[in-house]
């Protein structure tokens, strides 16, 4: 998550949107708040209270990361973690090809 925060700060000016979704149906809001404080997260964390996002995205394992392009098409799914920072950055760079 610190890697994601660093990447968020570096890429936000290029129009890259970071959205974290907490599986609140299996977790608690207080745990999310502790997490945000612990890692200094400044990008939005959405609360999936009913598990709708988990169902829609067919999440079978946490964490699962979706790389979605400007057209809304899922270009890559990375299941499991922690994710290496270079993996995160190379995939974002790939999505940004042509828009730089």
């Amino acid at each position, binding site marked *: 998550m610190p890697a994601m925060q660093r990447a968020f700060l570096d890429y936000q000016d290029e129009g890259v949107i970071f959205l974290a979704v907490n599986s609140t149906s299996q977790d608690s809001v207080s745990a999310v708040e502790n997490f945000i404080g612990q890692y200094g997260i400044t990008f939005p964390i959405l609360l999936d209270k009913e598990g709708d996002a988990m169902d829609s995205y067919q999440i079978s394992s946490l964490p699962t990361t979706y790389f979605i392009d400007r057209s809304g098409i899922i270009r890559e799914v990375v*299941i499991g973690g922690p994710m*290496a*920072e270079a993996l995160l950055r190379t995939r974002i*760079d790939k999505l940004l090809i042509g828009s730089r």
Partner: protein
Amino acid sequence: MFPTVQLGPLNIQAPGLVIIISLWAGLSLAEKFAKRNGYPADKIYNLVLVSLIAGVIGARLSFVLSNISVFAVSLSSIVSLNPGLLDPFGGTVTALLAAVIYGYKNHLEIWSTLDTLTPFFAVVMIGIGVSHLSSGNAYGAETSLPWGFNLWGAMRHPSQVYEIVASSVTLLIIWHDFSKNVSPGIHFLKFFIITSIWIILLEGFRGDSQIFVAGIRSNQIIALITLAVSVILYEERISIKANNLD
């Protein structure tokens, strides 16, 4: 599908685990065949090991060099265990180079060595199919056929299952013919011919592969070229055997 396997506190990436198991099983089978045919099994083991290690290092180095600015920000990622940070082309080239150097230094005859390694390749092909099934990659085109299964929001051809069945049949054929006394290289070329044929036939059921021209997939073109080259070499190896008998 089953992208991860939970073993106690460990959440293991199933596709990677399947590939590792298939490498081990394939190598064990190749060693068995090597011993049966009087080929030095230890050299086969070392050849594969050297190639794999060189392949992984080469794949990572190639990926790092291609994305040097990213790794400059995150140096620790260079030694990350994540397979997503590997360049398959760079890895293949390095592995082949390492194999050629090892084979040259140890005076390994190329066709006999490739024959001995054929069971290894055949088992790894099955492993790749199972890893595709596990990850949901190489998925099928949409279908209304009764054996279609639900994947990525649609009923699809079980293209990964087709892949597993085809590569298993290939292994059975190779296994059945392996004790036959044939020219060196025949087993390996037969494996390539059979594999190329089923890739040409099954690629059309895929829903994700890149179309080259007029509905023909890139992988079908590559398989067609591989098939043509393999058939030419196969005929050549057969004629060598015939000439020797004359």
